[in-house]
């Protein structure tokens, strides 16, 4: 009797110990996860934070290293928009907005049909078309720039908006098509089916049933398209003029009062202006954006 009780107690003690070890291990694993999370947060956010802090720092304290904002001023933002040193940042913002909007709209309007066909219809050469569109999105910009440079020089388009918009479409359109294709494949197409049973043609079913449902997907695709156009630098750096240059070019060539001194604080202010709207947009639509970004890679 006593022997069996003691055996039972021992067993219970053993189990308790086992549970404690497991709990400790769990806690330790959880702790490590948190440490890793903090490292990731620091690695991703610290440089961006440094840009914002510097943007608000007096130019005389450019290289100040205190973590918190010191010598706070808004002068850098004024300098960023100042045109007296040959910078055109304000104009560049408008240019980027204009180019990005046109490129996004054109790509969406053209791409939505292709995405529908690829996601929804059965036809020959589907994979060839898909391969062609994917190949196009992987295309090196430099392979386009040389002939376009010569062509636009010959027809007098250098420095015009259309010279910047047309090449942008070459990489935004494929991105638009394959992001939307992935989104479209996820949609409740039974509804289209019911609409057709109710007597709609395929076109009507698309317009009246599918389009409203597809709106969020199209909106997300629009954000991704706009961002990639907004970030474009290579083509714009070669084909734009002072009057039509987008913000990326304006920031890259930002000049200060002294030719040999890089006006870091003003550049950081300009960078902050360019970045903050994007970051807000991306954070607000985070889930959708991530879904759109990764749509191509997994399914």
């Amino acid at each position, binding site marked *: 009797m006593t022997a069996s009780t003691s055996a039972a107690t021992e067993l219970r003690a053993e189990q308790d110990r086992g549970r404690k070890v497991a709990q400790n291990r769990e806690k330790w694993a959880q702790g490590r996860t*948190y440490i890793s999370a903090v490292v990731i947060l620091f690695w991703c956010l610290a440089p*961006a934070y440094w840009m914002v802090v510097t943007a608000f720092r007096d130019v005389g304290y450019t290289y100040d290293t205190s973590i918190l904002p010191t010598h706070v001023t808004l002068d850098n933002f004024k300098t960023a928009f100042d045109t007296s040193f040959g910078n055109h940042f304000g104009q560049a913002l408008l240019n980027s907005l204009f180019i990005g909007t046109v490129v996004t709209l054109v790509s969406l309007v053209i791409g939505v049909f292709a995405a529908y066909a690829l996601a929804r219809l059965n036809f020959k050469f589907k994979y060839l078309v898909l391969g062609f569109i994917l190949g196009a999105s*992987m295309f090196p910009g430099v392979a386009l*720039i040389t002939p376009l440079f010569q062509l636009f020089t010959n027809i007098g388009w250098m420095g015009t908006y259309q010279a910047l918009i047309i090449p942008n479409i070459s990489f935004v359109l494929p991105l638009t098509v394959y992001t939307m294709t992935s989104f479209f494949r*996820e949609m409740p197409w039974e509804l289209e089916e019911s609409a057709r049973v109710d007597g709609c043609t395929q076109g009507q079913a698309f317009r009246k049933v599918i389009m409203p449902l597809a709106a969020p997907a199209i909106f997300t695709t629009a954000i991704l398209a706009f961002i990639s156009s907004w970030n474009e630098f290579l083509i714009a750096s070669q084909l734009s003029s002072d009057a039509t240059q987008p913000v990326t070019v304006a920031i890259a060539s930002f000049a200060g009062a002294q030719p040999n001194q890089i006006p870091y604080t003003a550049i950081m202010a300009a960078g902050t202006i360019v970045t903050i709207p994007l970051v807000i*947009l*991306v954070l607000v639509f985070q889930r959708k954006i991530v879904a759109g970004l990764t749509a191509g890679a997994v399914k």
Partner: protein
Amino acid sequence: MATEVGPTSVKAPASGGAPIHHAPKGVGEDNRIATQGRWAAWLLAPTILALSVVIVYPIITAIVMSFQKDAGLDPATGLFVEGGPAGFSNYYNWIFQQCPAPDGGTVDCPPGTLGAQFWSATGTTFFFTIVTVALETVLGFWMAVIMARAFKGRSLVRAAVLVPWAIPTAVTAKLWLFIFAFEGIGNKLFNTTVLWTGSEWPARWAVIIADVWKTTPFMALLILAGLQMIPAEVYEAAKVDGASAWQRFRMITLPLVKPALMVAILFRTLDALRMFDLPYILTGGANNTTTLSILVINQIRQGFNAAAALSTITFIIIFLVAFIFVRFLGANVVEQTGAGKGKK
């Protein structure tokens, strides 16, 4: 999943759950396919047309140009060169780093000229590609594994990784230029006095660090999406069977995440091979950070046709790398993307 398309083997695409039609196989089905084919042709026409104008036409023009001589004064020798057909001489000149000589032949390009930089630019491009993609894969995998775990504040981390991704590369380059400035925070933080953009290896590492910072999130999100496709039961079962954490990672996670991982690596590799913005703004291509893309851009104003030859070479290199990935490493992008093939 949509099924394969062919004249005979036809099954309804059931991507959204319900098949598009219920007609039995037969003549009606073939008609349906023909109708769908016509529809598809109309719907795809604008995209195909637009891409033909903005991509196919320039490419063909570039190839035609690359077989033409550049007319004008040769910048290296100061001699006037007539235009006209050039055969493969533009390609030859790049690959063997030859420049026109006074006697009409060619000589080795003098050091410092663009013509003498082909192989160093190719080496730099591949060096950047291999190092950044390797670092991004390892770091991205680690980030993805962390983000896949359940812990408080996970959504904060997932949001934070989007910040570097959302910042335009031109801004990223200027930001890191500032961090790597001689008096900048980089040197102060590590108590070093490195002239980061002043000599070869620091300049290269500056580009690599900035690129890894900017693009690892993209990699991490793609891998995370792949990780989330793995059902939790698989891990539970393996745990019950006594598999260690390392075994679970090697035998379950890696093979199951491999398709997504390969696509992520392919995307990043092709992107890194055309790297331009970052080194162009950060180092100006100085100190052996000139990539092939930068070399093309520098060449444009010295001669369109030679630049066209170089951009065609760049294109071929990227195409070959993509081919190797798809053919030998099993990165099946088309199947992974868009209208995936129904394998199940």
